[in-house]
């Protein structure tokens, strides 16, 4: 056993000398390889974490939401609409909601404005609002300071900042502004008695499809959204089939293919000569192959461990900063990510399998033919 270990160490000695001969090229290769692993691992970790976060946070979303449509667009919910909904069996609570969007032309940002179900609990009252962290950051707001909003009528209204929404909830509330019903209706000119949509809480979650069916019957112009749809939306976010992710994955696959092909396409004259010498001085075919395998293994293992570690730090300690320009797109607001790391052994193993094995094997392919060189070929000078 000890001999076997020593022997592998000798083979590694030689393969490192071999690599050191083209130091710049091989370091460059290692760097690129690491970068690719880094990108793939970052996407993998980020996606996993975001999906888990979504599933956890949105588990408490309303069971059923009823929207009203007119000619394919959202319309307001009128009092008679609620009347038509009436009392449905299996519905524990019906809540009419008020929420909408406000466009800030100076910041060129969209805020989501909402009237909370229990205003008092949120610290919101007439003239006083609660504001999300990102809005506060961009406008430089302070507690008990003021925020100025301009209505469609042209009239500007200022509100006092009662409270900032918590930092930990930024992923959901970064752009949120909570105000009282009175303020909402007067600022937006929302007609009295009308609402944005209706949220229902059902008694038995299994019955939710039946209830949705009944609603659709009673209110044919309604659109019903179930919580499971909400969760499903975020379950497949950053799916590999989606544009940007697919582009990244394709790029990575192609890069790996290029690395592997470059290795597998044959040896340089130098390398062939080297193998000939090794055979001549007493190395067996198996030794040569093992030595080359170590070359591939060392590079791919180093790239994998470094790449993954860097990706982990990037996503969880640096809030996936490199993805910001991509994710931000044309938005002006962007939440600060404080994701919770989750461990998925399967995905990690998949990443390992796809990044380490192909390259390690690719280094052996061209060697096969060369390694069975006759040991006397060096002497005959037929290399």
């Amino acid at each position, binding site marked *: 056993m000890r001999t076997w270990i020593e022997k592998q*160490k000798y083979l590694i000695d030689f393969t490192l000398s071999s690599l050191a001969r083209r130091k710049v090229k091989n370091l460059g290769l290692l760097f690129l390889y690491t970068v690719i692993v880094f990108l793939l691992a970052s996407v993998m970790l980020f996606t996993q974490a975001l999906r888990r976060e979504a599933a956890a946070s949105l588990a*408490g979303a309303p069971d059923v939401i009823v929207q009203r449509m007119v000619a394919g667009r959202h319309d307001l919910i009128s009092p008679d609409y609620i009347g038509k909904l009436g009392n449905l069996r299996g519905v524990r609570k019906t809540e009419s909601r008020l929420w909408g969007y406000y466009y800030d032309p100076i910041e060129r940002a969209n805020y989501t404005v909402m009237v909370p179900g229990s205003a008092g609990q949120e610290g919101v009252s007439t003239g006083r609002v609660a504001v999300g962290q990102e809005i506060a950051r961009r406008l430089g707001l302070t507690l008990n300071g003021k925020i100025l909003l301009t209505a469609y009528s042209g009239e500007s209204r200022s509100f006092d900042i009662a409270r900032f929404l918590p930092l930990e909830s930024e992923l959901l509330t970064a752009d949120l502004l909570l105000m009282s019903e009175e303020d909402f209706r007067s600022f937006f000119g929302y007609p009295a008695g009308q609402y944005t949509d209706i949220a229902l809480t059902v008694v038995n979650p299994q019955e939710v499809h039946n209830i949705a069916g009944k609603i659709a019957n009673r209110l044919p112009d309604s659109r019903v959204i179930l919580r499971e749809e909400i969760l499903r939306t975020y379950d497949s976010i950053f799916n590999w089939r989606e544009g940007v992710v697919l582009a990244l994955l394709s790029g990575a696959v192609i890069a790996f293919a290029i690395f592997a092909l470059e290795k597998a396409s044959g040896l340089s004259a130098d390398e062939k000569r080297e193998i000939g010498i090794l055979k001549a001085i007493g190395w067996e075919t198996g030794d040569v192959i093992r030595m080359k395998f170590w070359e591939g293994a060392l590079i791919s293992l180093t790239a994998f*461990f470094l790449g993954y570690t860097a990706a982990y730090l990037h996503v969880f300690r640096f809030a996936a900063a490199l993805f910001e320009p991509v994710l931000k797109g044309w938005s002006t607001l962007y939440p600060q990510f404080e994701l919770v790391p989750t461990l998925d052994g399967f995905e990690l193993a998949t990443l390992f399998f796809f990044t380490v094995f192909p390259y390690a094997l690719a280094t052996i392919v061209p060697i096969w033919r060369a390694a069975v060189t006759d040991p006397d070929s060096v002497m005959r000078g037929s290399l």
Partner: protein
Amino acid sequence: MIAVRLGSRLARRSHRALAFLTAIVGLFLLTFADAAWLRNCRAPGARAQAELAKRLGLTDLCLFTEARYTRHLSQADWHSAFQEYPGAFEHFPSGSLVSPTEPAKRHANLD
């Protein structure tokens, strides 16, 4: 004394390489420790977030605030081309990052 011994051990190339590999594997394993630690730290915050979301009845993550149908992916109406600007087919990058939601089965819908 140990430094001298270590120095002589590292004279050999394979020892240097294996030492380096061990170091980075160590860092790799440390990330799992860090992950466990972070989970602990951020768990209360995550719980608070879930509670707040439930209280306010929030339905979407605040990821893409460009347009109302990217901000509230699950609430957006489906006949939504040209909602914001006549020339804008897609809101980059959200259009290329999120797949359209499949509607829940077994109830009538308006699309």
